[in-house]
């Protein structure tokens, strides 16, 4: 006989303690008592999942009687629930794909006393089709493409290059729209404001330029390729700009006017783009700042080459925490809410993805949100987790919580060390649902980790050169990586293997981005070409 304990999935991610979970227990041993009992599981705090225990149980009993290992739990639950779920064995972290029997490792014998904890997660109800072909190779840049970014509403693609220009492309027609010239040096980093109106670009010439995309596109509408000047130039940094980050949509009450920038000179500056002034300069790092994240709770995280990660209060500019976790440069950071913060004022949810209603002019699949909706959406994701990748070949998973009084300066933080890479970690990224962490390393591998516990899940060793970046599809089922070996590879998370190998670039691929609605992905690299994949 086997006991299955069903636990409520951590729908908001933070409830790790057993007591916090609502238990829906079912004992096949006590079948008489529980047969009539209904299983209630609350999901997302909203939709109610009702399961007929007896249905599930009768199968379990039947399976035990016939000597089968375990019943097909997933099929039963899938039939009952409207949403697709992922079921994970808590001990081993294995996902139950076909039957429970398949998921249980062979070296762990089953017996009647064994209690299995199964965790289940709602998954995106839409399915992103894997990119499979290069639909366009667009020349235009005259030097390597260094950064790429789709706008939060998935209407535009911006690319920054070594030829000192930023170009805006229309991913639908696959044509260039506007060339934004003005920088004196390589354009290293791009950031779209959450309302998709502004584009900020940071450059080697120590300046940040703000472009009013909406008016650019309107002024050049119908005229083909236009050329324009920056709305404002933010000067102040003394070395090149390494990272840019906009204030989250809901924190700014929908105004989207504050921008944080990090530079090689070790400072972080907060700008107000309406006034064009530097509000604050945060100087706490002793070496160049490499990554910047503005969390949904108004905390600014910065990673630096002085081996520390610092947390700042974005309002007052006070340094809240200095985390000395790593032994070498911290290269990259990711927040579990990255995807939502990036989408900002827009959403690509089940409704928009599944509906056939497509905006006639642009084919938008993103729906605009109110501030309250955006805040609510973020709150549902639960506590934010921060993952940092370092030159010391490890990653760290950090949770920062304020103390009982909500005081962040007394924040408690827990870290988990994620070891396994044999070379420095260049890029980490959380899956849109926050369940997985993918890390790209110079040891030619991409590793997949559990986003909650930090346990290693699998390694993708397909590249033959350093992997520079990785990015997720919106439904968190696919992962794409760009590498020095000039190829892009797409992995299937559920199958745990290579899904597509996409050669085509003639040289190193520096940047990759998958649009928030998942229709198209873009890559750019040393061969000066921009490639769109569908």
């Amino acid at each position, binding site marked *: 006989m086997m006991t299955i304990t069903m636990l409520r999935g951590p729908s908001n991610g933070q409830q790790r303690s057993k007591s916090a979970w609502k238990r829906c227990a079912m004992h096949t041993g006590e079948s008489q008592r529980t047969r009539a009992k209904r299983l209630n599981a609350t999901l997302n705090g909203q939709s109610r999942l009702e399961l007929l225990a007896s249905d599930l149980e009768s199968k379990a009993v039947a399976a035990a009687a016939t000597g089968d290992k375990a019943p097909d739990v997933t099929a039963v639950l899938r039939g009952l629930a409207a949403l697709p779920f992922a079921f994970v064995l808590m001990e081993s972290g294995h996902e139950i794909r076909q039957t429970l029997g398949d998921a249980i490792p062979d070296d762990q014998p089953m017996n009647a006393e064994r209690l299995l904890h199964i965790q289940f997660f709602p998954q995106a109800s839409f399915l992103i089709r894997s990119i499979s072909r290069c639909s366009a190779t667009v020349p235009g840049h005259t030097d390597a493409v*260094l*950064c790429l970014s789709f706008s939060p509403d998935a209407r535009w693609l911006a690319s920054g290059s070594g030829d000192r220009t930023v170009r805006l492309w229309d991913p639908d027609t696959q044509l260039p729209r506007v060339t934004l010239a003005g920088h004196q040096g390589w354009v290293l980093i791009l950031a779209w404001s959450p309302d998709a109106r502004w584009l900020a670009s940071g450059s080697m010439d120590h300046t940040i330029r703000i472009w009013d995309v909406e008016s650019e596109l309107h002024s050049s509408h119908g005229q083909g390729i236009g050329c324009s000047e920056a709305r404002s130039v933010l000067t102040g940094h003394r070395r090149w700009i390494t*990272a840019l980050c906009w204030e989250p949509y809901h924190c700014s009450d929908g105004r989207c006017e504050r921008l944080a920038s990090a530079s090689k000179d070790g400072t972080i500056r907060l700008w107000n783009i309406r006034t064009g002034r530097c509000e604050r300069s945060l100087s706490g790092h002793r070496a160049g700042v490499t990554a910047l994240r503005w969390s949904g709770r108004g905390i600014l995280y910065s990673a630096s080459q002085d081996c520390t990660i610092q947390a700042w209060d974005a309002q007052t500019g006070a340094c809240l925490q200095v985390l000395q976790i790593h032994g070498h440069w911290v290269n990259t950071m990711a927040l579990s809410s990255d995807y939502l913060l990036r989408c900002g004022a827009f959403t690509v949810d089940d409704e928009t993805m599944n509906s056939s209603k497509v905006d006639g002019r642009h084919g938008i699949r993103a729906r605009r949100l109110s501030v309250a909706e955006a805040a609510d959406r973020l709150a549902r994701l639960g506590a934010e987790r921060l993952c940092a990748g370092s030159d010391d070949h490890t990653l760290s998973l950090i949770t920062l919580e304020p103390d009982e009084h909500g005081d962040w300066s007394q924040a408690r933080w827990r870290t988990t060390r994620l070891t396994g890479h044999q070379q420095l970690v260049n890029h980490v990224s959380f899956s849109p649902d926050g369940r997985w962490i993918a890390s790209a390393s110079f040891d030619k591998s991409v590793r997949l980790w559990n986003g909650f516990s930090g346990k290693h899940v699998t390694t993708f060793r397909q590249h033959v050169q350093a992997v520079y970046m990785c990015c997720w599809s919106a439904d968190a089922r696919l992962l794409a990586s760009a590498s020095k070996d000039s190829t892009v590879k797409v992995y299937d998370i559920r199958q745990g293997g290579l899904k597509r190998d996409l050669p085509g670039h003639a040289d190193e691929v520096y940047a990759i981005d998958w649009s928030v609605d998942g229709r198209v992905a873009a890559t750019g690299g040393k061969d000066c070409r921009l490639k769109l994949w569908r």
Partner: protein
Amino acid sequence: MPQGDYIEEFRKRFGERPDLSERERKRRAREPHKIAATSKELRGLKAKIFQRERFKDKVRLRKEEHLLKRGETLKKGKTSEDERLKNALPAYLLDREDAVRAKTLTNTIRQKRKEKGGKWDVPLPKVRPIPDDEVFRVVRTGKKSKQKEWKRMVTKVTFVGDGFTRRPPKYERFIRPMALRMRRANVTHPELKVTFSLDILGVKKNPSSSLYTQLGVITRGTIIEVNVSELGLVTTSGRVVWGKYAQVTNDPERDGTINAVMLI
């Protein structure tokens, strides 16, 4: 002989001597006299070298003087900024330029395989043909020595593949000595100016004779195939390049190593 830093040491302890500036001024004033005396004295090559330097100095002085008259300053050469603006790098690679770039093998350098007809656009187009008697030494075997002179010992460096099994000594016609067998070559990438130590996969062609090719004799000008799999080269179709050809540029049997240039 280096005398140590006794002057600096003295100055640190006791300060400069009081008449230092006066002495230096005088030394500077005597400098042209000293130079004139040297230039009169020197003969031969030393004089040539000295005059060359002096000429350069004078050119520089004249230029400076000329610019000074026009109120300009001497222009510096190419700035490092310009140099750096050539090959753009993303933010995450900016600080590790040296470490990462050293091993770069770019893909834009296409692999051209001109196997057909054996036409090679090689760095060493002409090599001296090596006669048989230089490569092979006659080995006398057997008791009735004068008659049995049909074994040959190769006196050049050879490459012997992994799968080679010796034939029975009775039927063995060529001896390739263990001491002259080599498995690795130092291969230089001509465009990147980087050298790698790579495994040899085989001898593609020895220009002197097809027999040498068969035997794996490596002399100057020989085309060898080397294993580049660890360099991570990828063709545009996404496949990993495994073997690449290289031409030997030195005399391996004299140097004890094989130096080669990759053919691209």
